[in-house]
């Protein structure tokens, strides 16, 4: 489903990704962990081209892209890739001027050209799936953080993506609201959604991941099944990081 090879990204002189390779099978969950500044969010954002990689290749679903410094991808290719991915942001980024329902129908109507009725029906179904059937007509400002993030998940799912990307989806939430969002993500995993999740929650990572990668300074320093990465890390950098978390 996803194959990334030799991905590089720099901001000016600062190299954020220094050659990242990864593969992910359909229906699997990949969790990316690592200290802040390790490049995990940048890697995730490269998967839907919110960040444009400088070098390397990316294959995702039916789209296959090669990045070269100085050459710009055609807009059509970028849009094509984005249509196969859904993204959930740390800060939700719901559209504040639209109700929960309209947040979910907007792109269905403008991007996928669905009829309003169909889009609304789909949106209501998704709201029900995330436990917010009764909040359809609420504006984001009247929803809690956990509720907003669940609407954001429904909004991304409405586009029927091949892969869902989660960028620290619970980091901006009050502790008591984290559980309701994790529950929805676990539910998606159980339904066989292909997902890439950046998170700081190690217990959640261990529970939901099929494969874990640990990044540090723009490189993957450890990867494997969650049990191996968490309990039997091979690299010293991974041991260090996990020890630090254990304290």
């Amino acid at each position, binding site marked *: 489903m996803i194959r990334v090879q030799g991905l590089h990204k720099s901001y000016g002189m600062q190299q954020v990704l220094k050659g990242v390779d990864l593969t992910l099978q359909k229906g699997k969950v990949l969790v990316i962990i690592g200290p802040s500044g390790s490049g995990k969010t940048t890697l995730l954002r490269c998967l839907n081209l*919110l960040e444009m990689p400088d070098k390397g290749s990316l294959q995702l679903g039916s789209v296959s892209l090669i990045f070269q410094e100085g050459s710009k991808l055609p807009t059509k290719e970028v849009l094509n890739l*984005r249509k196969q991915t859904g*993204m959930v942001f740390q800060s939700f980024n719901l*559209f*504040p001027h639209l109700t929960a329902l309209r947040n979910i129908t*907007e*792109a269905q109507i403008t*991007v996928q050209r669905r009829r309003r009725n169909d889009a609304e029906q789909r949106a209501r179904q998704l709201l029900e799936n995330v436990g917010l059937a009764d909040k359809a007509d609420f504006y984001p*400002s009247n929803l809690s953080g956990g509720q907003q993030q669940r609407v954001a998940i429904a909004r991304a799912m409405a586009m029927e993506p091949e892969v869902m990307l989660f960028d620290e989806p619970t980091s901006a939430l009050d502790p008591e609201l984290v559980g309701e969002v994790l529950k929805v993500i676990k539910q998606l995993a159980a339904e066989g959604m292909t997902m890439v999740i950046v998170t700081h929650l190690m217990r959640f990572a261990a529970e939901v991941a099929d494969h874990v990668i640990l990044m540090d300074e723009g490189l993957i320093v450890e990867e494997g099944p969650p049990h191996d990465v968490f309990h039997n890390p091979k690299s010293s950098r991974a041991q260090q990081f996990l020890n630090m978390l254990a304290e």
Partner: protein
Amino acid sequence: MSERQIQIITDSFWPLLKAGVIYTIPLSLVSFALGIALAVVTAMVRLYAWEPLKWIAGFYVWIIRGTPLLVQLFIIFYGLPSVGLTIDPFPAAVIGFTLSVGAYGSEIVRAAVISIPRGQWEAAYSLGMTHIQALRRIVLPQAARVTIPPLGNTFISLVKDTSLAAAITYVEMFRQAQQIVARTYEPLLLYGEAALIYLMFSTILSALQNTTENRLGRSSIS
């Protein structure tokens, strides 16, 4: 105050108010509507267009903001005929005020668009929207709310500035007052009365601005 003065005030009130309602207000509305359209186009050009177009838009804003409105009106009405372009008072006034609202308004619109957080664009992009779709469906509707208070001010200023059209022979409310003064020799009374009617208009507009803000603000406080 003499009986004659009271008579002049009461006799002139309706003609002045009428001139306000049928000349000042329409001139303001037409100029404002056209000006806002121009402001949005100018703002979009300055934000997103091809470099030379950005430069032209910047030049336009620079010229209009850097010269007095009265001088601009004189150039349009008295100046252009010498190059063979004669424009009637009403269209000349509309052109002048539209250019002015367009220039000041474009900065308001531009600032509002810039104020929308980057995350809104990213969310729209992540859903597969193009730049234009994200702008039209997500960013501009939010930016529009931000522009309401400053554009409300622009409109109130415009209503008062239309009195400048008197100088290019357009008979709006202030010109009407001047004409009555020419007959009655009561400048203090008549200009005071005109000022009062402008004040009335401004007050009504401020109230409208507040209700619009409250109505639109309901869903956007986050």
